[in-house]
């Protein structure tokens, strides 16, 4: 389950860095609630369309900040800019956060992004359903994604 505003921020980050891969974290409390709360975009030190790696000093700072706040990386996200948002062999072999949701944002289509989420543990990938909600407190029903701007009718249009 993930808040719509966090999805919008991840998608905006992925669009901004396209065609390079964008990456970052959604931090949340270390209380087992599994709720991402804080958007932390990270620098892709590789600046590559096919690879990402957190900048090592930025990563240290962000992880120390999370430790100080009793937070964990609930979501680790990155974008695939030309291929399906499914974990690649590289993603699987390098996955290092067994409790995180690995969210992939696909930006190969300029009009419609794709949003998928996985667990990656010991080389094993499990896709999971995404529920996008306005907020967690009254989350009874969610949708699998947020609409792109192109999908929202412009009220000013004739």
């Amino acid at each position, binding site marked *: 389950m993930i808040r719509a505003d966090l999805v919008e921020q991840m998608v905006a980050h992925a669009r901004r860095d396209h065609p390079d*891969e964008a*990456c970052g*974290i959604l931090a949340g409390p270390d209380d087992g609630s599994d709720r991402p709360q804080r958007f932390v975009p*990270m620098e892709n030190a*590789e600046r*590559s*369309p*096919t*690879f*990402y*790696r*957190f900048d*090592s*000093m930025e*990563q*240290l700072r962000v*992880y120390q900040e999370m430790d100080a706040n009793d937070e*964990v990386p609930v979501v*680790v996200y*990155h974008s*695939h*800019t*030309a*291929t399906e948002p499914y*974990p*690649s062999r*590289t*993603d699987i072999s*390098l*996955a*290092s*956060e*067994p*409790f995180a949701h690995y969210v992939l944002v696909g930006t190969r289509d300029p009009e419609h992004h794709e949003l998928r989420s996985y667990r990656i543990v010991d080389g094993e990938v499990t896709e999971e359903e995404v529920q996008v909600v306005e907020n967690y407190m009254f989350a009874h029903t969610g949708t699998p994604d947020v609409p792109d701007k192109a999908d929202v009718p412009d009220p000013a249009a004739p």
Partner: protein
Amino acid sequence: MSATVSIPTILRTHTGGEKQVKAEGSTLQEVITDLEANHPGIKDRLVTDGALHRFVNVYVNDEDVRFSGGLDAQVPDGGTVTILPAVAGGAR
């Protein structure tokens, strides 16, 4: 010469769930050897063929050891060693 070592989630199986452990040594190499003595198996997760894994970040007193000598980096008494797996991947 004792240092405090921060262990990332994925390696805590080697430390019985502990987030921080003490280790002895005046270089990173010695600290890792001492870690291995108390937490068997951890060295292989950090070092291959006498060098640090490419996708493991190690910091001594918040400095990335890639820029301060790698395994030969000096660890001052009372210093901190932080281990973080690189967060990396990509479409290819």
